């Protein structure tokens, strides 16, 4: 029983991390129908940005004070992620906004490879795993036999909290309404006085902030980072967004938790064990898409006039 509970806890934590990134995929898709494959790399770059902040910007005495160091790492990582995302949108995607859909998709893959190789070549020693600083709360909360690490707990709280804030913002604020309007019909939204460029940049920025938070937490939760992390986690996040229905905030978060849980539970109970846990994720994805092609919470695809 305690094994089951422990695996559920692990699954929820993995899901929380995937959710933070999946939100970025789903929001961008919702607005400009672009699968931004470089989004996983924004998450990776943020993680290195946080590490760089800690290594070079923080004075030695502050490094030992987690209450100061940790928030500053978040700030550093998020700033790097936002800058990368804004540049990416301006120079890689905006010129292709009215091009056939395939063009920005290929560009996204190109940006992804570029960012990975850039970090590999520019960041010192990035060719191998880098240890992440120990500024996160060590240890774990013990509930009977179940072990809940403090960093993992922080991850779940931040992930769910930020998703709720985002959902509320989009549903209730003026800018949120502009976003929904642009998603539904960019031309009409423009006629109503919405500036699509502003809305789109803001969408990229929101995605980058969430990816930035995820990047720092990933380092703390797993204790080290590497340049492949964006690709690996990005694939899961993309899958989560598709599973939940691309374009849906709630869908992305729920899809992410489903994937986290399938991964750990399949590793424990299915034949083949942890070696085949990825297989079950995609089996579930395929089954869902067969019966609900729009995903769990997605709307059926509209044909644009």
């Amino acid at each position, binding site marked *: 029983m305690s094994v089951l509970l422990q695996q559920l806890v692990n699954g929820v934590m993995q899901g929380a991390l995937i959710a933070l990134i999946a939100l970025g995929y789903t929001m961008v898709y919702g607005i400009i129908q672009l699968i931004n494959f470089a989004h996983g790399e924004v998450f990776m770059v943020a993680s290195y940005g946080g590490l760089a902040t800690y290594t070079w910007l923080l004075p030695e005495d502050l490094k030992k004070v987690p209450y100061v160091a940790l928030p500053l790492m978040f700030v550093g990582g998020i700033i790097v992620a936002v800058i990368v995302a804004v540049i990416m949108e301006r120079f890689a995607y905006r010129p292709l906004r009215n091009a056939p859909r395939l063009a920005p998709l290929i560009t996204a893959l190109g940006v992804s490879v570029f960012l990975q190789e850039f970090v590999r070549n520019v960041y010192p020693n990035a*060719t191998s795993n880098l*240890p992440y600083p120990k500024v996160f709360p060590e240890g774990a909360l013990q509930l009977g036999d179940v072990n809940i690490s403090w960093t993992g707990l922080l991850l779940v709280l931040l992930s769910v909290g930020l998703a709720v804030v985002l959902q509320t913002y989009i549903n209730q604020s003026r800018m949120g309404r502009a976003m929904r309007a642009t998603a539904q019909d960019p031309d009409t939204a423009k006629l109503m006085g919405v500036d699509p460029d502003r809305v789109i940049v803001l969408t990229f920025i929101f995605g980058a902030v969430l990816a930035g938070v995820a990047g720092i937490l990933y380092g703390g939760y797993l*204790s080290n980072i*590497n340049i492949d*992390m964006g690709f690996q986690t990005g694939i899961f996040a993309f899958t989560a967004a598709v599973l939940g229905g691309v374009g849906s905030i709630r869908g992305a978060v729920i899809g992410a938790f489903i994937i986290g849980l399938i991964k750990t539970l399949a590793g424990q109970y299915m034949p083949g064990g942890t070696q085949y846990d990825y297989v079950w994720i995609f089996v579930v994805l395929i089954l869902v898409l067969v019966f609900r092609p729009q995903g769990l919470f997605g709307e059926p695809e509209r044909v644009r006039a």
Partner: protein
Amino acid sequence: MRKHSVKSAAIVGAALLVLAACSSNKTEGGGNNGGSCDTSKGTLTVGVVAPLSGNLSALGIGIKQSAELAVDEANKKCTVKGYKLAVSAQDDEANPAKGAQAATKLSTDPTVVGVVGTLNSSVAQTVQPILKEKKIPQVSPANTNPTLTRGNDFLTAPKRAFENYFRVCTTDDLQGPYAANYLVEKAGKKKIAIITDGKTYGEGLAAELSKQVTKKGGQIVGSEKVGEKDTDFSGVIAKIKATNPEAVYYGGEYPVAGPLSKQMKDAGLNVPLMGGDGIFDGKFIELGGKEGDLATSVGAPTESLATAKAFVDAYKAKFGKEDYAAYGAFSYDAANALIGALAATLSSGDWSDSKRDEMLTNVGKYSGSGATGEVKFDQYGDSTNKVLTVYSVTSGKWKDVETGTFTG
């Protein structure tokens, strides 16, 4: 007539320029010119195939630089009469496909007399047959999988797998059981869980360890696999934690082993993690290896070996503080075995492709005292040096605990 001789002089001059360009290309990484030695017959190349970039580059660069050191010294001492030696180091990124490319590149170069490498047993599997085609001897400083020399039935029906393949380190059919004896008898850990990365090296090593653990009265309580690129091991850890192991044995390398050890501790599974020579590197501790974690590695600790002192001093003088890592001394010995065999081969005439058979025989017959002790090969190409050492993480550093050979 006069015009003609000017023309031929020009041609000779141009040819010399081309030659000079070629040889200056080849010396890349080869280092010093011998200076006073006679190098009139040209340049011969010692190839190196090792991971020079990527996660295992700490080990790979130690291998490359140690081979360069051996070649430099040979050039200074004029060990190979009439030729200058150079190193051509190829990056295999610890990836079998990349290793095959590197091997193909080296095998098409007629000046390559032998290859030092690889680090990974899985890469050796693709490199061996390519070099065999051209009869190029390969001496590995680090491959420990027994099938590479003795074939799939290495215990019951050993059969030489590749006549061009040799190694200067010992093998996992000794390393695994040696680790098992230490775990069960000295450390008193009876319940052991196994995790591997599913690659040639890790799988083979863990299988050999498991057999000996059971033989010594221990128990294998669980057996799991992780992906080489996995980063989150919470699922695997929760699964083996339920079996209450007293130690975890990991078959694989430090990029996974370090974080795995840290995540085990975070998940409340505070038992030692043990591994083979693949986790014996400072990076393991940097990436999360904890106090009390154990590793076996091939040979005696380089720092404490009297025979290795000259190597360590020369390496530090040439490369400064960069580490020669776990296999530096072995790589130095491997390169010297090739150089020694080459010198013997050339005593009966100049280098040509027809000399390759003789070269292979001479590597097999090579015997010398190297940094790691006596360097000699048995009929399968395995090293006769079977020494192993157990290390443990003590105050943030690997410290040797016990050195010996496996005796059953």
